[in-house]
Every structure is written in structure tokens, then in C-alpha cells.
């Protein structure tokens, strides 16, 4: 099967099971997903439906039992700097300042200090954290921490950004602000994004395409291209119509 040139990252028939002492849990069952270059795809599903597992497979943090993840047509065998991850729990390094957190990826790559600080500064400015370069994560609010998370992932220059419910721990107000911010960063510095959420509004607000997942075992239920121009209004009739359609199709309970 020839790889279409515009597909950036692809999951091909992925299955994953977790074994506990009593049960075998089928987390992902034959999930296939293609994401095009610079596309913003949102994976929407209820809690525990395997969307985080799917994302971790794409990141290479865990390996699928069956199927494979292809990045630019090559099979993913582990994590790599070509795929940046934004974690729900931020996963910032508490002993590093904002500047050192953001430049971490470049440090690992061996970029020298002036160069990596310059790049990091650009992204710190982009997420609106100028003035906090020397702060430690514990001195920041949740929203600010996740801005650091975004800047850290973006600054490393990955082709694909994988976001695992990045705003799930934030309050509603901050969440709206962060969604807006994410889009504006993405517009300025386009990357392929796979964004996982359990929030229908967030999915429609952000996504070029919404992939609805269903539970136990997790599989792709349906897909909705969202062709409302960005930035979108939550009260736009087309937005509401889309929201009704997708809501009817989703089991957002546990």
C-alpha cells in the first residue's frame, strides 16, 4: 500500500490490551487514524476510552500489541523529538526554571546555550509568559504551567504535537483562554496536532476534524470534518448544530 505523501502520522489497525491479575482489558481495538500534515485533529471520547493510550502509542511511550504507528511512512519504535507531547498533568521539571523547562528539548539535542535560550524566549513570549523566565513551576498557576508545557513542546520544533487533555485540569475560564491561545499559536506556527479531549465544545472549537471514539474496547466510531472558519464562536448556529450532532453520537459518561 503506497503512502499518500500528505499523511504525517498514521495509526494502522492498533490494538492494545492491559493485563491485570483477574482481567484482560481491551483498551484499543483495531484503531486506524490518518492525520494529514498541519491538520488539527481532535480525538473526542469519554474517560477511560483509550484515547490517552492511543496518544501514548503515537508518542511511542507505549507499544501497541497489534498494528503500528507510522510517522512519515516509517514505523514508530519509540519516543522521539519529532513528536512533542503536552501532558494533562503538565509534567514540568520542578527543579528547572520556566526558561530551562522550555529549552529542555534543545538541551537534549545539544544546542548551545545562547541559541536554545533565544529559541525558548521566542516561545515563552508566544505563550505570554515574558517576565516569568526565572520562575519555578510551583510559583505558577495551572494555566501558566500549561503555557510552559505548550512552549516546551513547541520550542523543540516537533513535526507532530500530541496533546493529552492538556486543559482538563483547568477551570472553565482559563480553559477558554487556553483554547484560544492554542489556536493562535498554531496559526502562527503550524504543526500537525492530535488533541485528545472529552469536551465536545473544545473539540469543535479547535479541530479541523473531530474523531469520536467509543468505549470498551476503544475504537473509532465516527469522524466529523469541521469546516466552520476559525476562530469560531461558541454561539455560531453552525457551531451549535455541529455540537448537537456530535453530542448525539457520543457517550460522554463513564
Amino acid at each position, binding site marked *: 500500500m503506497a503512502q499518500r505523501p500528505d499523511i504525517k502520522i498514521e495509526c494502522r489497525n492498533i490494538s492494545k490490551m492491559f493485563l491485570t491479575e483477574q482481567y484482560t482489558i481491551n483498551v484499543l481495538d483495531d484503531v486506524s487514524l490518518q492525520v494529514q500534515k498541519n491538520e488539527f485533529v481532535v480525538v473526542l471520547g469519554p474517560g477511560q476510552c483509550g484515547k490517552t493510550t492511543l496518544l501514548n502509542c503515537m*508518542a*511511542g*511511550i507505549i507499544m501497541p500489541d497489534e498494528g503500528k504507528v507510522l510517522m512519515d511512512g516509517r514505523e514508530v519504535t*519509540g*519516543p*522521539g*523529538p519529532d*513528536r*512533542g*507531547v503536552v*501532558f494533562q*498533568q503538565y*509534567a514540568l*521539571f*520542578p*527543579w*528547572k526554571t520556566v526558561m530551562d523547562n522550555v529549552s*529542555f*528539548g534543545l*538541551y*537534549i*539535542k545539544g544546542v548551545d546555550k545562547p541559541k536554545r535560550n533565544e529559541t525558548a524566549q521566542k516561545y515563552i513570549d508566544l505563550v505570554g509568559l515574558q517576565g516569568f523566565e526565572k520562575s*519555578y*513551576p*510551583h*510559583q505558577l498557576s495551572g494555566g501558566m504551567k500549561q503555557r510552559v508545557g505548550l512552549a516546551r513542546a513547541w520550542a*523543540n520544533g516537533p513535526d507532530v504535537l500530541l496533546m493529552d487533555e492538556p486543559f482538563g485540569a483547568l477551570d472553565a475560564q482559563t480553559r477558554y483562554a487556553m483554547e484560544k491561545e492554542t489556536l493562535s499559536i498554531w496559526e502562527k506556527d503550524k504543526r500537525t496536532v492530535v488533541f485528545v479531549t472529552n469536551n465536545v465544545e473544545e473539540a469543535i472549537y479547535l479541530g479541523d476534524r473531530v474523531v469520536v471514539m467509543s468505549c470498551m474496547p476503544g475504537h473509532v466510531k465516527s469522524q466529523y470534518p469541521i469546516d466552520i472558519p476559525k476562530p469560531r464562536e461558541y454561539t455560531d448556529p453552525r457551531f451549535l448544530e455541529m455540537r448537537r450532532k456530535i453530542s448525539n453520537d457520543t457517550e460522554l459518561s463513564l
Partner: protein
Amino acid sequence: MIASGFFKKGSKLFLPLLSVAVCLSIWEVLHLIIGGDFLPSPYQVFKEGLRMFSVKIGGNTVWVHIYYSLRRVVIAYLLGAVTGLPLGMYMGWNRTFDKVVKPVFEVLRPIPPIAWIPIAILWLGIGEGPKIFICYVGAFVIFVLNAYTGMRYTDPLLIAAARTYGASRRQQLFNVAIPASLPSVFAGVQNALSMSWMCVLAAELVGAREGVGYLIIQGMDMYKPPMIMVGMIIIGIIGASLAVTLRWFERLVCPWRRDLT
């Protein structure tokens, strides 16, 4: 209200002073009840302290005795850190190594450092060797345990995050696991010093010609309770000063920790 305001404002200095005053009073009362010989009064102890600092005991001033004890502790402590921290960290980092070393360590661990005194004397004679060895055993075990715990409880998410940036196993160790384990290591650093300090006195009680432990034994041999108590107070003050110094050092090395007072 006024009283509580005063209490709040003055409490920083007032409460500690009050606590000392109450302790001294209870001590004085007990002295009066029990009688002078067994339990000297605070004033007698204070006077004895002044005397001890102005004469030579066993050929050395009190300062030299303190120096001897501290030197033993510091040597043992540094040896313990240099050997214990890497061992504990590596046990926490490498599962295979852990499985090999852990059983041996688990058996050696519950043996109190003092139980090593006889064998230490047999092996190392009666000089500085056994005393340093005892302190070393005490510090070493605590260093290993805390480094190990710190390593094992490193948040796996942080390791995963480092991996997504392409960090090698070595980079994960030095850039994530070790800094993440530092708070736990520092808890150990303090405990190890206290332990070392306690061990040196135990070792000195058994046979030494110098050191704070020797002062106490001299007090006992000469039947001078005030002298014993001065020795004990010196131990307490030095132990507390060591802890304070280390806490200051921790704040210097781990500026990201917020729960430091």
C-alpha cells in the same frame, strides 16, 4: 484580642524563651525534690560548664574534644555520602542491580551501628579507625535508603516527558531522576548526620581518650553528674547546629522546593 495580638507578634522570640524557662523551672523543682547529688541544679551545671571550658580535661580543652568528635563524624559522614548515595541511587535506577543487592542490604540494615563496635575494635584496633567506622555504618545505611527511595519515587511521567524529547537513558538519569530524587536525598542527608553524631558518642563511650563521649565517661568515673550533663548539653547544641547548617545548605541546592520553612 490585645493579648492574642501580643502573643502573635512576640511569639517568634517569646514562645521559645518561655519554653526554655519552663524547662529550667521544672528541672530546678526536680533538683529540689530529688536532692543535689543525683540531679544537679541548672545553675550548678552552668557553673560546671564554665569550669570545664577553662581547664584541660584528659590533657585537652573542651574545644579540642569537640573537634575530635566532629572530625570523626565529618570523615565518616563524607565517606558515607560518597559511597552510600551512588549505591542507593543505582539500586533505585537499575532493577537488576536492585534485585542483586537488596537481599544483602535488607539483612545488614537492621543491625544497629552500635552492634558493630566489638567487631570494629577487633578489626581496626582502638584508634580512630573503629570510631569512624561505626559512624560510617550509621550514615551509610541512611544515605543508601534515602537515595534509593528518592530514585524509586521519581514521577514516571517526568521520565516519559524526557523520553519524548529523545533523552537517552543516561540523560534521563542525570537530568531527571537524580534531580527529582534530591528532596528525598536531603531528608537523608540530615538524618545521616544526626545518626553519625549519635554513633560517634556511642563509639567514644566504649573507649576513647578524646571526644565529647570521653567527657561524659570522665564525669561518670569521677562521679560528677554536672560534668555528665554539660557533656550531654554540648551534644545537643552541636547536633542542632549541624541540622540547621544542613537545612541552609539544602535551600541553597534545591531552590525549587516550596515546603521549606
